[in-house]
């Protein structure tokens, strides 16, 4: 299969929850190797867009991942194709050990040596996780849980990582760390679609940004341009 320039393309996708249209005709694409951030107010449809991409909700319109459609795929088959969704609220398995959490990240794989090298890569990114391997994941602090969630997602060896609010509920200093690591992961060749409330930080790390408003795309363009745009600054950056 020839490598498509865009790892992900959305064309006019809509999602309905019953009679409510959560997102309406959203179109954008993620270039291979970039960080794209999806920002917007509460209820703008950011999380729904991620769920639509990973086939967790029924979607109308075209989602193309890595050159082929995701229609009829299930979240678990998409993981095998290299799309990993790191859900909002961390979603770690609290009563299982950190080790078991990581091994579930590699659930779809059985290439022993490659898993081990990916695991070492996760430990380099998050030395904290290595110290806590035998501990129950529920006993980790919020920041450590977020690191575990990202590390676990990396173990599925994704080509595209969907991150849903990784800064949720974290202290400002930890947010800095998480974003630095997100950039590192990206530099190692993983494309990232980042959903964030913290528009300021998100626009700093991302290459491209898409602004969602009431279920539709309001603006899109290079992140640096959007950070300078008056409308975005008023609406999301507060100055």
């Amino acid at each position: 299969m020839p490598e498509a320039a865009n790892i992900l393309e959305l064309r006019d996708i809509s999602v309905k929850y019953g009679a409510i249209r959560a997102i309406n005709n959203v179109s954008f694409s993620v270039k291979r190797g970039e960080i794209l951030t999806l920002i917007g107010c509460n209820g703008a449809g950011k999380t729904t867009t991620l769920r639509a991409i990973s086939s967790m909700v029924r979607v109308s319109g075209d989602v193309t991942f890595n050159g082929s459609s995701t229609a009829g795929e299930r979240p678990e088959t998409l993981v095998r194709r290299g799309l990993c969704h790191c859900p909002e609220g961390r979603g770690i398995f609290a009563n299982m050990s950190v080790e078991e959490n990581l091994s579930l990240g590699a659930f779809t794989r059985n290439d022993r040596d490659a898993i081990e090298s990916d695991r070492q890569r996760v430990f380099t990114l998050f030395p904290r996780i290595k110290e806590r391997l035998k501990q129950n994941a529920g006993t980790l602090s919020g920041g450590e849980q977020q690191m575990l969630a990202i590390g676990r997602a990396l173990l599925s060896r994704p080509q595209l990582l969907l991150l849903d609010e990784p800064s949720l509920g974290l202290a400002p200093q930890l947010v800095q760390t998480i974003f630095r690591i997100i950039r590192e992961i990206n530099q190692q060749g993983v494309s990232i679609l980042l959903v964030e409330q913290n528009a300021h930080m998100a626009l700093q790390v991302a290459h491209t940004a898409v602004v969602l408003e009431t279920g539709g795309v309001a603006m899109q363009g290079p992140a640096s341009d959007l950070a300078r745009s008056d409308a975005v600054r008023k609406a999301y950056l507060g100055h």
Partner: protein
Amino acid sequence: MSALTDLIPAHRPSLAQSLFAGVVVPSLCAIGVGTLMQFGVGPVLGDYWTSVGVQVGIAVMLAVSLNIVNGFTGQFSIGHAGFFAIGAYIGAGVSYYGALLIWNDASAMAHGAPLVWNNSKSWLFGAGEWLMIGGAILGACVAAAFGYIVGLPSLRLRGDYLAIVTLGFGEIVRVLLQQTRPQVFDGAELREMSAGELVIPPLGGATGFSSIPKYANLWWVWLFVAVVVFFAYRVKVSSTGRALLSIREDEIAARAMGVNITKYKVRAFVLAAALAGIAGALYAHSGNVLQPRDAGFQRSFDCIIFVVLGGLGSISGAALAAVALSIMTEALRGPEPILENWIALLILTAVISIVAAILRAVGNRGWRITLLMAVTPLSILLLGLASKFFTDATGINLADYRMVVYALLLIVVMLVRPNGLFGLTEIWEYFGPERAKKPPTTPPTASQAAAAAPTEGSRP
């Protein structure tokens, strides 16, 4: 070095290796357990407590099997007795009608060893017993098929809604069993029945299915207990087990990790149903009259109590709760059986205490839980004494209130240990070298929680 890659073998084990580790060793262990129970423990117990021992084994199988669905996977099923009854009626049908057709005689004496009732003049492995094993396997298969059917709605339902579906399943089985034909006691009469008449099988209807040969002695029952426990343990530590646990923890995250939750939920139901079917088939051969109410919710609730009390997800916890509660319901019948065995109870206390002392001496942290276990026989004895004095003094027989005592104990345990006795932890995880007290490291909260975990054994 790392446990994660240990889970994936460096090279595929050969067929001989897998067979040895997965079949030969556990089979030998199971035979060992059965032999020990039959020839070591049985003679000490005497006839009455031997029959209790058989019922205890069946309760353990039920608890461990339900734990796969309710414990590992976190799907609340309250129709487990339905699978149990399916296994029981099929197992009974095969060995009763099989014996009737082959030998024109379904009594246990002729074709197997009714060891529960008579230890002296009997032999193992009579042809009738193999008929029972065949029936148990068939019962397990049919129960598994029903497990698949019941598992399917669990894809869309969870929590209370799934509970109602499974409850409905148990009741359907109960009502269908009530509608079966009266039992046939004569081989010739059975042969004359047309195929059309056998569409509704003669399983006794509302009056029950009786005269089933009593082949389920301690040997067979505890052999299967060992097999079931081993099987459940292997499921728990396999990748299937991790997938089941991840569904229990967080369905969305499990899907995001690539776990096909549909497949694994149904798998959990099928496995649990098959094991319950085996338990049912053995129950049918343990001297009971099968009745449609065996599929009813009373028995399902008993299973749930074992699992919740022992710890959702802990195989050893659920098994231990099943043992303790089954014995307790018997012991609470009156002080006499307890007081008659006071020497045995004291010896048991002494032996376990000595084991605890040795564990402490060699620096094994398991001594605390061992000591707790030593208190159990002692408190049973004290309970018996107290109840005898109470009865002598007031004339009120406490045995009449035994279900109140039972319920009170459940309430106390759930208040003291809301996650069940063991939570997700297995009992052997309490043993091991004593852990050194770590100096507090940063951040203190997480490391303190970890240090507290082994003694408390509680997982949040």
